């Protein structure tokens, strides 16, 4: 089999992707023009930076540091607000023209109520999918725990978002929970059409020894990149063993082999974050080529055939399982 014969197309809730590489949220995807460029660089779909009702400046610099094994960030969910993001999404779509790839709008809020409002608002831009980033502090809860920390709260957010839009909803989970499968089950029961996993891990902290100051102004930040790849693979495996909705695997994927690994544990597509900076925006084309070559070598001719090969027989996330 030649790499050209491999069918790399995949789908999330009926939305067709020419290949399974997607931009991860918060990675370069602030503007419509850059989203369109990422599409030109070969991504199967693009995801916007997460936006909230109001614009947010985020944390002061430094906000992102590459510590070698991975990246740590506390950008603080800075974004121009949902109104501006609606315009950026429209711009992206227009600029993509013929070579249009699906656009996923990522949203977040600090209350369950606002999650619904921002989801309704962003729907005006008619994104193909909405991703609810629930890895942010819930100001209504004590300690501002993350929405994604408990199955119960995660489900509440999901219900609210679902009832605010007709666009399919992806819920993005945090890996920093005792049992991610439980959270996955809860959000699916609450109506999530798909799951993406994972957001950044940790949190972690780095210190400058000389000044004895945390390197990030926010002191702590989430880990991403190669450091967290095994964690992300395990999370997706656990989720695909628990639910049958499409899963977008995210966390540390750098090349075609890593994409194949994620799909083998049940993902339908793979979000690419840190590697976009490490290998440049062309990473989507590179990963796709590497994936096709690998699949051709292994004699696997479609994503559907690759998907879930590493899951136990009968796992809900395996194609053809009737869970």
């Amino acid at each position, binding site marked *: 089999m030649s790499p050209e014969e491999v069918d790399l197309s995949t789908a999330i809730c009926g939305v067709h992707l020419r290949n399974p590489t997607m931009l991860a949220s*918060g990675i370069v995807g*602030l503007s419509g023009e*850059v989203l369109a460029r990422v599409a030109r660089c070969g991504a199967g779909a693009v995801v916007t930076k997460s936006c909230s009702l109001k614009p947010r400046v985020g944390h002061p*610099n430094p906000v992102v540091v590459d510590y070698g094994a991975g990246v740590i960030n506390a950008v603080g969910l800075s974004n121009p607000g949902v109104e501006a993001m609606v315009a950026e999404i429209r711009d992206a779509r227009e600029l993509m023209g013929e070579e249009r790839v699906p656009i996923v709008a990522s949203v977040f809020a600090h209350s369950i109520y606002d999650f619904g409002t921002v989801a309704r608002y962003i729907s005006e831009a008619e994104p193909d999918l909405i991703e609810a980033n629930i890895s942010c502090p819930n100001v209504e809860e004590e300690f501002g725990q993350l929405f994604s920390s408990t199955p119960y709260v995660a489900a509440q957010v999901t219900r609210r978002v679902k009832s605010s839009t007709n666009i399919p909803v992806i819920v993005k989970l945090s890996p920093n929970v005792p049992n991610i499968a439980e959270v996955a089950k809860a959000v699916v029961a609450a109506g999530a059409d798909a799951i993406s996993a994972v957001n950044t891990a940790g949190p972690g902290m780095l210190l400058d020894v000389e000044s004895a100051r945390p390197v990030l102004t926010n002191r702590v930040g989430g880990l991403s990149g190669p450091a967290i790849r095994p964690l992300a693979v395990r999370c997706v495996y656990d989720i695909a063993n628990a639910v049958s909705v499409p899963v977008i695997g995210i966390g540390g994927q750098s090349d075609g082999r890593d994409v194949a690994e994620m799909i083998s544990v049940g993902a339908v597509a793979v979000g690419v974050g840190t590697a976009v900076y490490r290998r440049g925006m062309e990473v989507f084309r590179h990963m796709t080529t590497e994936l096709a070559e690998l699949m051709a070598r292994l004699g696997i001719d479609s994503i559907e055939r690759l998907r879930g090969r590493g899951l136990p027989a009968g796992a809900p996330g395996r194609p053809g399982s009737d869970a």
Partner: protein
Amino acid sequence: MIPQMSRITRVLFENRSVATFELDACVDAEPGQFLMVWLPGEGEKPISIMDPDPLTITVARVGPFSTALHQRQVGDAVGWRGPFGRPFTVDGRHLLLVAGGYGAAPLHFLARRACDAGISTTLALGARTGDDLILVDRFRAIGCTTVLATDRGDVGYQGFVTDAILPDLAQFDRVAACGPEAMLYAVARMCWDAGVPAEVSLERYMKCGFGICGQCAMGDKLVCKDGPVFDIEELRHNRDFARFTRTATGRRVSL
């Protein structure tokens, strides 16, 4: 890349609002690249490399961060990481540098490399008043011809530096510019018209500084990674160049 701390070995006040800081470090960089300079507790900002060895930066006091830096003294520590970004091309036989304000800093580094390479180098420097013309002696010391222009006309040509050099543009086979975006646009226009190859160094609000966060988008370019130096041909159809910028939230606003 975690910031490293270096100590200030020399501070030179160029005028009442611009100071040059020499650090006990050197950096393996190309002209036009920049650093993320960190003052723990005060923030981190993109600053061009004025000289790589010893590492030297020239900073205008414009707000909280730059004011804090100006208060630092010899012996104090300054954090930095980098170099980041795409550099200027060191090429041509007759190179014209067009600088406005602290834009002279990266061009100084370029001038040094160009002069070392035997390129005849002319600096055209513009500012509001004579006092705002910085680094002139340094450029002369490394062998640059200088053309000065001030809005007031108290030193050199009275008016825009771009107007000052326009008549002589044909003498140059390459142009590099850094300064206010309106000036860069004027340079680009001139060079598009005259068909002279040119590069300009741009600024946008930066967060990561290395191409991951998307904050510095200018059209479909990331200024921190695709730039800050751009060939003017890359900017011909850029919707934002000289027209739009992005605030710290990422909102696109008119320049």
